[in-house]
């Protein structure tokens, strides 16, 4: 297991947003975390990447305890987080947004290579490379956000609702790319999604979160077929 979370609890003031969550994701697997609005999905992800401080519990990454470690340190350990809502910096160009992801490696040559790599994954970004990123479409921004995360050569990718606000066709494309990246780059991925069906279809593993607690863990396919999950989260 490359990512091991045990009894993780996160509070927002008096509210317990994540309640004793335990989960494990094996290396190279894509785990989808699904659940309703307010289930604690985003808070869980933010606690894993160091943006939120957990009040209890342990996060273990590749044998190292990383609970409460700052995000800028976690990036150096191979953990990249794409936060909710197309996390790009509108004031910067596409190229600058990408370069930002590799800035901590302090290696100009590698930075260039990584930009080329991301452009080969997302050719659309290549066409817009020197445009300000606020001129991009929603789908392109999401590609850019994922591209920036790839720039830091992650081993663990935390994705928060990449489908948010995108057209169905674009969502399908983004999901497909996430699946391909996971396989090709041997990434371990934690994908938080409201679009439960789309996420489970590409995932190896599904985790259902409700009111801050894990209520089901199974193979993604098994969850799709589970009548209770279907009724509650897949809508039929």
């Amino acid at each position, binding site marked *: 297991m490359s990512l091991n979370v045990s009894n993780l609890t996160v509070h927002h003031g008096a509210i317990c947003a994540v309640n004793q969550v335990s989960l494990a994701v094996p290396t190279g697997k894509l785990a989808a975390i699904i659940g309703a609005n307010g289930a604690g999905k985003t808070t869980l992800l933010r606690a894993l*990447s160091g943006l939120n401080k957990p009040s209890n519990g342990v996060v273990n990454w590749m044998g190292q305890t990383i609970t409460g470690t700052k995000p800028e340190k976690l990036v150096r350990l191979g953990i990249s987080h794409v936060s909710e809502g197309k996390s790009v910096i509108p004031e910067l160009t596409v190229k600058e947004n990408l*370069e*930002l992801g590799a*800035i*901590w490696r*302090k290696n100009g040559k590698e930075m260039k290579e990584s930009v080329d790599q991301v452009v080969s994954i997302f050719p659309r970004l290549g066409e817009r490379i020197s445009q300000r990123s606020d001129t991009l479409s929603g789908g392109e921004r999401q590609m850019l956000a994922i591209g920036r995360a790839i720039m830091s050569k992650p081993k663990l990718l935390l994705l928060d609702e990449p489908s948010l606000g995108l057209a169905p066709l674009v969502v399908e494309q983004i999901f497909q790319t996430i699946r391909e990246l996971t396989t090709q780059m041997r990434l371990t991925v934690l994908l938080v999604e409201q679009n439960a069906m789309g996420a489970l279809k590409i995932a190896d593993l599904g985790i259902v979160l409700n009111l801050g607690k894990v209520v089901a863990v199974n193979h993604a396919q098994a969850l799709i077929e589970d009548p209770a999950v279907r009724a509650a989260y897949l809508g039929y």
Partner: protein
Amino acid sequence: MQLLNTLLIGVTAGSIYALMAIAFVLVWRSTRVINFAQAGMALLSTYFGYEAVSRIGSFWVALPVAMIGGALFAALVELILMRLLVKHASSGPIAGVAPIIATLGLLGVIRSVISMIWGGQDLRIVAPISNDGFTINGSTLVFSPLKLLVLVVVAVLLLLLTILFQKTNLGLALRASAHAPEIARLSGVKVDSVRTLGWALAGAAGAVAGLFQTVNGNGNFSPDSIEFSLLLVSGFIAAVIGGLDSLLGAVIGGLFLGITISFVLMYVSSGLFFIAPFIILLLVLFIRPQGIIGVKAGRRA
């Protein structure tokens, strides 16, 4: 000829205001604080420069000494005072204004400490070259070799700053931390250190503004210098005119302010010296509240 003269005087004064405005913008961008102590820091840096001049005798040594001294002092203020303050006053109605009020307090403290160390009397820094106006076709201008030098040095500094911000990774980190600290952190940028660096750069820019404001005036300065109050007001107004968030805006705001004041003094009334900057500020705020090149504050998720 008088027109050109007025313009050049305005550009010179404006370039000094621009440096001060850049100091305000750098601090605002890195920590969302209006640093009213900026003029106090510039004054302190001028005293550092004075010490260098009186020991070594060269203005060209004094300039970097003042810049480094100003940068270090500003970095210390951010590291010790600002971080502590943000930690202790992080909630409630005071959270947003506490750091800004603290800079007002700091301004007073700096002035008093300067009085205790150097005394309250006027000290003097002699300009490195003549401030006597050029003579063209027999008529003498107010524009002088010294003013030309100020313009050139400020232009070079602006060019260096532009290269730093636009062409280097450090500049990218500075811009990313200013616009989206969370994304910057997730990209591995040590945002806290970058913030301190922002303050340090502001301290250095303010130091140059302080020294030039002094030698471009009559060379005298004291803890209660009117020149530094003017620098504070003009730099702040120039920064606001420029949209407070943009370095280019700060430069444009500084030049705009300098030139406008110069023309008002020459062609309207020299009695408007202290009131002109405020009238200009009010007009700009009425007509373009987002600043000359500022973007209208839109949705910020």
